[in-house]
């Protein structure tokens, strides 16, 4: 029993046994004890940072760096290959499609037939597209108008300037060509826009196109006569108020028609005689709302880009 193996002295297992009984501390004398909160010394973090810094500098120091050039070549090759692949894929898909203008194609299904056959009777709109987007899918169009409003708010936020830019040298103020032309053209453009909006349910057009035409008219007026004259009737507050009013009118009017329709209640909105201006139920009023929103959005985009505010 007492015959010890000489190899056992100072071996790993002896140390392990001592550590188990608590006589031995393997960490003693090997680690430097430090108080917490003291700064770390030595070549740890700063050395690493220096290393990264050196690497970064070597990467972008010269534009003609080898790595960057290889990457660029690789990128161009891969994207051109992707383009070819996509073209082939899309063309193969097109080759499987039915013939152009085929009446029996799967997309001309009962949905379109239902819209065409029952549209006049249910909505009273002569223009099937207007009846579709402002009656059957009216909440979808409401969402689109809200998208426009939010986009104009975002652009105003992004381009907001503390002090509006003064009229700069590029502005064609007092131009001998632009001002007389604008004086003749602006009323015609705006009246045409109003015509397109009000006839949205009878002829091609509607809120989106008419609003864009009116917005273009405002833009032309501003370009010719400057912000001072435009600001008299198109201030920031006015545009905000009228847009929100139009959106909320749209929301409430359509909610009313959905409420009465879903509960089979009597509704005061009737399709009316097709072809008249005041017919097609709510479509005229909704067209006007959409037109106001689109026109204000287009003008506020332009004003934001031009000056940073109204």
């Amino acid at each position, binding site marked *: 029993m007492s015959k010890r193996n000489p190899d056992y002295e100072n071996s790993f297992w002896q140390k392990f046994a001592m550590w188990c009984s608590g006589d031995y501390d393997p960490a003693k004398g090997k680690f430097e004890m430090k108080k917490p909160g003291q700064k770390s010394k030595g070549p740890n973090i700063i050395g690493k940072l220096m290393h990264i810094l050196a690497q970064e500098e070597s990467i972008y120091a010269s534009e003609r760096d080898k790595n960057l050039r290889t990457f660029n070549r690789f990128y161009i090759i891969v994207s051109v290959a992707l383009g070819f692949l996509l073209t082939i894929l899309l063309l193969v898909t097109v080759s499987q499609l039915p013939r152009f203008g085929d009446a029996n194609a799967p997309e001309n299904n009962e949905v379109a037939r239902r819209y065409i056959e029952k549209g006049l009777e249910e909505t009273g709109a002569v*223009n099937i*597209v*207007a009846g579709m987007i402002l009656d059957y899918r009216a909440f979808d169009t409401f969402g689109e108008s809200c998208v426009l409003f939010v986009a104009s708010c975002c652009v105003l936020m992004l381009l907001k300037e503390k002090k509006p*830019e003064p009229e*700069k040298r*590029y502005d064609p103020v007092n131009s001998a060509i632009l001002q007389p032309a604008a004086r003749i053209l602006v009323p015609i453009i705006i009246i045409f826009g109003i015509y*397109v909006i009000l006839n949205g349910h009878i002829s*091609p*057009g*509607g809120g*989106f*196109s008419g609003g*864009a*035409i009116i*917005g*273009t008219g405002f*833009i032309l007026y501003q370009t010719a006569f400057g912000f001072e004259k435009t600001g008299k009737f198109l201030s920031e507050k006015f545009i905000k108020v009228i847009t929100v009013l139009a959106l909320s009118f749209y929301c409430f009017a359509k909610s009313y028609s959905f409420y009465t329709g879903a509960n089979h209640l009597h509704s005061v909105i009737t399709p009316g005689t097709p072809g008249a201006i005041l017919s097609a139920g709510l479509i005229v009023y909704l067209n006007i709302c959409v037109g106001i929103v689109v026109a204000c959005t*287009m003008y506020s*985009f*332009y004003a934001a*880009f*031009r000056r940073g505010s109204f």
Partner: protein
Amino acid sequence: METLRILLLLFLIICAVSVSFSKKLLVSVVIYMAFSLVMAIIWLILESPDLAITEGAVGAGVTSILLFVTLKKIRSIRTEYSEKEQEEE
């Protein structure tokens, strides 16, 4: 009719290619304007007058105006910077 369709579509593709190869930004914006106008004609041929009116007003009108104004704004920012640099010198 078929020839007209092919011609208009070819014009579209040529416009789209030349947008990326034109050296001046102003030229590419004007080419994009022409692209939108031809698009409006194609929609008239495809029997969708609603789309033609909207594209004529929005695509050819407002988008191009906004692109022009963006270019103008960028130019005015550039002159602002160069003026500042001159003042510092």
